């Protein structure tokens, strides 16, 4: 019996397959196009505002041409740097705790709280920072902004460092213990270095995330027209300046807002790129 190899409906299946592929391709193009359009628009609008004095000078009063966002860039570095310094030890240690001793009700509760925290809108985090650090002290401060940013970074750091440490094979840790290493030394000198590229990836992404945040700054860092490096005082911050300039009625400020937005996008882009590079190293490290 010679069975016919061309089944009924083959043509229709092929057509459906092509249709599906085409649809997916269309949607992917749409998503990429939207991103490219935003990028392109910001570059076109912002590139003209960027020059050396824009990066290094204080803002000028309305009507005085020139001026820059130098104090905002400095403020961003200080505020995000302080937040990172606070978030890294807490987040990393919590991640280690969850990865190594992560069974039972307490770790489960921690994970749940961390997940909830990562879903809290950043404006609510800003309000919390305001209520805890601004209202009682009766003045705005860069530190309160750092505190809010730390709260935003923590859940990301906790969960990703837990994942990174968990992904180190148990046999590597056991190998260290079997050599007579203490639990502490096995964790610090063997497990953590193995997980480090993935942890740094997560850290860069967390920094990128807060770099783009404005809401928690509105009633914490508040903004400033001056060079300010004391975390106890109100401080300028780049994304906050973008916000202030963008809603202003003055064309010169608006064009500077585009310049600031471009700087922010470049910063996030560089951080994400760095994260990808580290992730690639992490993949190479774990593959055998």
């Amino acid at each position, binding site marked *: 019996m010679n069975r016919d190899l061309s089944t009924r409906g083959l043509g229709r299946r092929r057509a459906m397959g092509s249709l599906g592929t085409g649809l997916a391709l269309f949607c992917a193009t749409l998503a990429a196009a939207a991103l490219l359009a935003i990028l392109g628009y910001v570059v076109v609008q912002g590139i003209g505002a960027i020059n050396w004095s824009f990066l290094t000078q204080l803002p000028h009063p309305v009507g005085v041409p020139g001026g820059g966002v130098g104090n905002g860039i400095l403020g961003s570095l200080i505020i995000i740097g302080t937040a990172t310094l606070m978030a890294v030890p807490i987040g990393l240690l919590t991640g280690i705790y969850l990865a190594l001793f992560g069974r039972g009700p307490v770790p489960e509760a921690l994970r749940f709280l961390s997940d909830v925290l990562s879903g809290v809108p950043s404006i609510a985090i800003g309000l919390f920072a305001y209520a805890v650090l601004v209202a009682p002290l009766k003045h705005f401060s860069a530190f309160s902004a750092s505190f809010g940013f730390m709260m935003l970074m923590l859940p990301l750091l906790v969960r990703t460092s837990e994942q990174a440490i968990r992904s180190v094979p148990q*046999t590597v840790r056991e190998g260290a213990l079997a050599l007579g290493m203490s639990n502490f030394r096995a964790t610090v000198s063997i497990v953590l270095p193995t997980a480090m590229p993935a942890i740094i990836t997560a850290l860069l992404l967390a920094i990128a995330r807060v770099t783009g945040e404005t809401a928690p700054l509105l009633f914490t860092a508040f903004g400033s027209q001056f060079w300010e490096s004391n975390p106890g005082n109100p401080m300028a911050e780049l994304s906050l300046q973008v916000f202030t300039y963008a809603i202003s009625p003055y064309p010169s400020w608006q064009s500077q807002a585009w310049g600031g937005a471009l700087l922010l996008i470049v910063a996030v882009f560089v951080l994400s790129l760095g994260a990808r590079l580290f992730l690639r190293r992490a993949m190479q490290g774990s593959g055998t």
Partner: protein
Amino acid sequence: MSAEAVTVDHVLTTEDLNAYYGSRKAVGDVSIGFGRKAITALIGPSGCGKTTLLRCLNRIHEVSFDARVQGSVRLDGQDIYSSGVDPMAIRRRIGMVFQRPNPFPTLSILDNTLACAARGLNRKARVESAERALRQAALWDEVKDKLKSNPLQLSGGQQQRLCIARAVAAEPDVLLMDEPTASLDPIATAVIEELMGSLADEFTIVAVTHNMQQAARVSDVTAFMLADEDGIGRLIEVDETAKLFTKPANRKTEDYITGRFG
């Protein structure tokens, strides 16, 4: 004490050893002795508790979540589970090689070898001590020109010999090997088996294998384990390898080694 126990010099003995994962008992009432500078093979089908038994011998079993041990294990007469004993000190005297090669991926070949060696040695002494261990593991000639390289560049068999060198560098009394060739090809397996023979000049070796030919080839003594109807691993028979494979005393052993098992 039986006549045999008097004549054989046992470095390591267990007495009524029970091992649990939570409430599940994985090994039950095992009493066995391991002869000095002999190779003892633990054989048996999957799930018979041979790896768990091995992991009780250097107190690495208790590292797993919810795992515990009952009974005693004596190293030169001293109970390694008595309360004053430091498990880290035990693990330095009883080294372990795992089923899959597990070199530390962030350390160089040299630093892997010296991972547990004494700190504070100068560079020359470090390299000398590493060379000794790597020679013992029959790896020196293959890695002497790339001591600073990443161990993951080595082949699987070389990685496993690196792990052996790492364990040997601590100068243990006993070397535990958990299916050391399970992930290796036949040629790398032959190298490791030959190596085990030469290591037995200096160390007491206890090796888990589910490959009976391997047990017959490399070991002096073979212990056969089997899970009972409750899933608890029991020691069925232990004897000189030649005798166990030719004239097993127990019917279950005979069924297993002749492939009539199951």
